[in-house]
């Protein structure tokens, strides 16, 4: 009769269970960006409201600041500066043990062309490589943490400006040099320049597991200056190209003397062939490096004549052409890889230079493109339709043109004097189009004045319409030479370092903190947490370190706040020391207590409401 009651109650129980199983009780804000580009004002196109994120990362080289600048696109907001070749007290870079070792004896670097790691010719978002023209080094930055992981010195070379460029599966990063020097940078008279000097190029490999860079081999190219370069793609994947200037081999007043010849060269080389030479032992061992001398270990390297003093050489996304721009003979030249391969096959050469075959210009040249009054073409990027965008340094504009026809499609003025530009994934096999940023060398009155020293200027150009349109300008510290623009969702960062249970330097529990003396060495295993330091939990004053004058002090500090954005700093007054420990990270600072006295220690990175109380004392007993 009333049988519906048990049935109904059973149903209620079932629904209750189902609700708690499947219902979504999650709370918190959610947002989605509407990205309809049409009909938006310029302001709307670049506005990224709080809670939403930029669509692209811009990783701009910092030139002689030795740093990388990370921006968001399209907002053009500066997000972070990552130190690479220069110390940075804000992050303790160059102060803590690891980064001090990375920096070696150098205090600065000239960070030029950054290159993202690639898989199948597309950015994979894992690593960023960069070179130091100032002190001849190469570096790699991990993009999970945006920190520099390794730096190597590149011997026999001086100023790897013509870098970095990676092959399409990051097999190699090549570092050709700007300045020719004698092998080993030994003393040699400039009168012997042509005989004794070399423009050495290095082939660098990256060991991802250990995050180590390594020089696989070097090539002793002629003593010319190597300016810019690009790796082949797809059908040209085994090849690479780089521009040269001063093939005159001038040794003074290069402005005049290196601008005499009507043509310089593009060096075209097959890195697979060079790799094979190394495997076959077809090289000389010089200064501990495997060195290929092109005139002796022949093959795999060719010269292509090009309009004089070229700057950029860029491979089209389909990998079929390379475009070089003669900055003094103002034209862009489109060369065909296939024609070059045929010419090599048929030995269609116009003699040799320094033992390297010269391919006939007319055999490889596809077309010369010379937009009217466009002066100083430096560097070319590409969009999703294969259209080329070339910066015009002298006429201060970006020219859009079709490499297949040579037709000029559009021009837009920029303020002023763009060196490089960077398009969204614009040097990959698969550019996105959408945005291009002109990296301008001259800002003049673009921004509020800060006196004689000016910022550089980056201008964001919308590529989605029929006409290019400058939609945003942003000042930037000196000085971006080149940049990489990568879709934000390709970058997978971490915000907290994981516990390393086997790290002997880490202390994750207060009970593990201790101060150990070994002779005149003092080893401190401490923790930083909101809002205190604990160096020895059992001591009467756990936040005090007492040593004797002259002791060597090792402070290993672990941040045990495994909480996003809770960074602690650590500084000792008057000891010129500062470092940071990120959440979960263990970091070491090493120094000699060479000043007796009393020195407060404190947390330098504002961490909590009681950050001001996060202090201690470093006491150095004088020698009696």
């Amino acid at each position: 009769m009333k049988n519906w009651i048990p049935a109904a109650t059973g149903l209620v129980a079932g629904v209750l269970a189902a609700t708690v199983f499947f219902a979504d009780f999650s709370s918190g804000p959610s947002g989605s960006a509407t990205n309809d580009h049409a009909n938006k004002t310029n302001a709307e196109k670049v506005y990224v409201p709080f809670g939403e994120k930029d669509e692209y990362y811009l990783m701009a080289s910092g030139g002689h600041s030795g740093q990388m600048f990370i921006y968001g696109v399209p907002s053009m907001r500066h997000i972070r500066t990552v130190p690479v070749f220069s110390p940075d007290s804000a992050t303790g870079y160059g102060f803590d043990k690891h980064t001090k070792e990375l920096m070696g004896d150098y205090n600065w670097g000239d960070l030029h062309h950054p290159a993202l790691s690639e898989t199948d010719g597309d950015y994979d978002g894992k690593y960023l490589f960069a070179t130091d023209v100032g002190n001849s080094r190469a570096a790699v930055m991990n993009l999970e943490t945006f920190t520099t992981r390794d730096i190597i010195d590149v011997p026999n070379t001086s100023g790897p400006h013509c870098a970095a460029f990676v092959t399409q599966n990051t097999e190699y990063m090549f570092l050709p040099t700007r300045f020719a020097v004698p092998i080993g940078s030994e003393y040699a008279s400039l009168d012997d320049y042509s005989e004794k000097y070399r423009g050495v190029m290095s082939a660098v490999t990256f060991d991802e597991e250990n995050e180590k860079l390594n020089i696989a081999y070097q090539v002793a190219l002629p003593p010319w200056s190597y300016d810019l370069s690009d790796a082949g793609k797809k059908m040209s994947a085994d090849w690479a190209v780089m521009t040269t200037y001063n093939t005159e081999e001038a040794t003074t007043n290069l402005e005049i003397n290196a601008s005499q010849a009507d043509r310089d060269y593009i060096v075209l080389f097959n890195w697979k062939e060079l790799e094979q030479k190394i495997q076959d032992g077809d090289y000389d061992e010089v200064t501990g490096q495997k060195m290929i001398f092109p005139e002796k270990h022949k093959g795999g390297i060719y010269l292509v004549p090009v309009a004089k003093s070229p700057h950029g050489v860029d491979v089209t996304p389909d990998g079929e052409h390379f475009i070089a721009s003669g900055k003094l003979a103002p034209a862009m030249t489109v060369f065909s890889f296939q024609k070059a391969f045929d010419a090599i096959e048929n030995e269609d050469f116009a003699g040799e230079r320094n033992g390297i075959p010269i391919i006939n210009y007319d055999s490889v040249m596809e077309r010369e493109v010379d937009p009217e009054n466009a002066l100083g073409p430096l560097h070319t990027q590409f969009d999703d339709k294969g259209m080329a965008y070339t910066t015009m340094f002298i006429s201060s504009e970006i020219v859009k043109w079709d490499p297949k026809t040579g037709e000029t499609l559009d021009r837009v003025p920029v303020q002023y004097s763009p060196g490089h530009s960077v398009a969204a994934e614009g040097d990959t096999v698969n550019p996105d189009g959408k945005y291009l940023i002109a990296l301008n060398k001259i800002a003049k009155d673009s921004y509020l004045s800060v006196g004689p020293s000016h910022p550089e200027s980056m201008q964001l150009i919308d590529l989605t319409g029929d006409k290019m349109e400058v939609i945003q300008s942003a000042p930037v510290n000196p000085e971006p030479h080149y940049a990489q623009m990568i879709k934000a969702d390709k970058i997978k960062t971490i915000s907290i370092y994981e516990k390393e249970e086997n790290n002997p330097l880490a202390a994750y529990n207060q009970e593990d903190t201790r101060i150990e003396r070994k002779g005149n060495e003092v080893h401190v295993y401490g923790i930083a947490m909101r809002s205190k330091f604990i160096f020895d939990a059992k001591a009467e004053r756990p936040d005090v370190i007492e040593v004797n004058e002259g002791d060597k002090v090792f402070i290993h500090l672990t941040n045990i706040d495994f909480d996003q954005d809770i960074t602690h700093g650590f500084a000792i007054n008057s000891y010129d020391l500062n470092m940071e420990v990120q959440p979960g990270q263990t970091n070491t600072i090493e120094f000699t207590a060479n000043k007796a006295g009393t020195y407060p220690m404190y947390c330098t990175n504002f961490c909590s409401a009681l950050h001001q109380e996060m202090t201690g004392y470093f006491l150095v007993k004088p020698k009696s």
Partner: protein
Amino acid sequence: MNGKRLSAVSSFLLVAATLLIVASLFFPWWKMEFFAPQYPEGLNIIVYPDKLEGEIDIVNGLNHYIGMANFSEENFPELQYLSYLIGGLAFLVLMTAIIRRKSFLYFVIGIFVIGGLLGVWDLNRWLKNFGTELDPMAPIKVDPFVPPIIGENTLANFVTYSHLGLGTYLVIAAFILLLIPLWKDRQK
């Protein structure tokens, strides 16, 4: 005799209740979420019958400012044996399904009610301990407080929300299944 025996359908419901109780062991029973301006994503303390989950270390790190004791599995001896008690209860329900005696069902329902009340009392006792026995040396002095078992509480920059977890709902569902035979097999 018929009046003292449970029907086959009732027996089946009791087996279902047993399964729900066993399932509850694998889900959280209670949860407290903490929100603050700088923690819009929220921090959690999630209580299972045998363990704690969530951002316990971070919550502890923040709670030390008001002198609150640490949440940790060692501090809650209940976590050592609670799952056995729940397992025992499931066993009793299963026994009822097998022996099908109404009197035994009354007994099990009695145990269920007592267990539930004890659980609520215990949870409330802990909340009271944590909220009122604050370290007098704490840098931030707050008035003693008792967060509710279910509902909202505000403390300094934090708003907390306490909820019952899925495990508790499963057990409530099981309890409802236990009551149905009383109705279904009532004396007419």
